[in-house]
């Protein structure tokens, strides 16, 4: 079953089309990572998922229900970590947990306390006095304590130092291992999500450019280095970018084929970050 199912979603702010017929789905037990530059439409998509933004057209289903009409009931089974963690500034983590425990049917109070301790967040300090990283960690701890079927994380490691970042991914990985949670997350942290994503979506200018399994995505992208002016056989490999260097050309291809054989071409595999940059790096190529 798909816990998230988006079909032909379009959103318009005034005249500007911010999401253009986006379709994607997140099967139960999988991790979907949505990438895109700022302004690509990620936040609008998340707002639609959370029932905070009404789709201009298309359908958004969460846990097989209509999120716009059934928001309150559906979100009881969803853990959310927003981009800007928000809570009453005078409440401390312990008070926040007490408040939230009434909202979720299966609340894991012991897990919440243990997580806070691993993060090293003082449970008695008012939310408003916590650092940005600590706010995010409290929000994540609250989200996980609700034992959600689906976690929606909007750039959970944005602005965090490497230690805090690692701690966030550690908690996420442990939850995946222990409960098989389904995750939908947006991120700019490409190295961080590289090992975690089952499936990757890349938004550019409101369009979903890529919606694919991580393994197949990495199989089909390669960086080739070859002498300038000799593009024989390259068209079939679907070149997406060409850079001219002193020694020749660097070509990124999206349709790599193992049977391609040329002695003068050097072939290198690419990380998710390199693939992302090659697709959205050149703004002119819309």
């Amino acid at each position, binding site marked *: 079953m798909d816990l998230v199912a988006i079909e032909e979603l379009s959103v318009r702010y005034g005249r500007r089309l911010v999401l253009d017929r986006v379709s994607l789905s997140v099967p139960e037990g999988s*991790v979907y990572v949505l990438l895109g530059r700022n302004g690509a439409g990620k936040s609008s998509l998340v707002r639609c998922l959370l029932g905070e933004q009404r789709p201009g057209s298309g359908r958004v289903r969460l846990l097989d229900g209509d999120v716009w009409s059934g928001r309150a009931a559906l979100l009881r089974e969803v853990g959310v970590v927003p981009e800007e963690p928000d809570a009453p500034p005078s409440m401390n983590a312990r008070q926040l947990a007490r408040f939230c425990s009434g909202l979720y049917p299966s609340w894991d109070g012991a897990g919440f306390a243990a997580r806070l301790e691993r993060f090293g967040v003082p449970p008695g300090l008012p939310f408003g006095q916590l650092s940005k990283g600590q706010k995010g960690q409290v929000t994540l701890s609250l989200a996980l304590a609700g034992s959600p079927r689906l976690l929606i994380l909007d750039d959970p490691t944005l602005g965090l130092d490497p230690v805090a970042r690692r701690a966030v991914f550690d908690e996420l*990985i442990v939850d*995946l*291992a222990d409960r098989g949670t389904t995750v939908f997350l947006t991120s700019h942290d490409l190295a961080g999500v590289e090992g*975690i994503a089952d499936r990757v979506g890349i938004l550019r200018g409101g369009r979903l450019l890529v919606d694919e399994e991580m393994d197949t995505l990495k199989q089909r992208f390669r960086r080739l280095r070859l002498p300038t002016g000799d593009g024989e056989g390259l068209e079939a490999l679907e070149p997406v970018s060409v850079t001219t260097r002193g020694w020749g050309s660097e070509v990124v291809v999206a349709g790599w084929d193992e049977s391609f054989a040329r002695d003068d071409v050097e072939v*290198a595999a*690419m*990380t*998710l970050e390199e693939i992302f940059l090659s697709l959205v790096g050149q703004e002119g190529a819309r």
Partner: protein
Amino acid sequence: MLLLSYTHVSRSLRIDPADPRPIWRQIEENVRHLVASGALAYGAPVPSVRDLARDLQVNPATVSKAYQRLTDTGVLTVKRGEGTYVSDSPPDFSPRERGKRLLQGAVRYASLAVTLGADRDETRGTLEDAWSNLAGGAEEQTEEEREEWTSSPSKS
């Protein structure tokens, strides 16, 4: 016999994001390599899916897939309620598969020998020494030497 600690297993299993092989395959092949080299002894415990996933910062499902394939081919054995262990005997490869794997390693070693300017006799002699080292003199090896043996899995 000197064995790799849990930390060393995780470190030797480190994955490479620039490697074209899927992560589960990298883990699978690295474990095979550790077992074949003796760094992970027959019967030794391996990290749980949860721990290894956290150490490598990868999806537990990915580790699980690698472990599943290793269990299916007899390299690892799951003991219910206890954990996952290296099987008590060598994996049962077909002679053809074993030959293929041997040749892959041999080509790498031969290429290294040629580029270093070693002749056939020296190359053969070193192989003999390495064999003796693996088989008997493991306790004389330092950890660094051992890691060197286990940290360069094949890239196909």
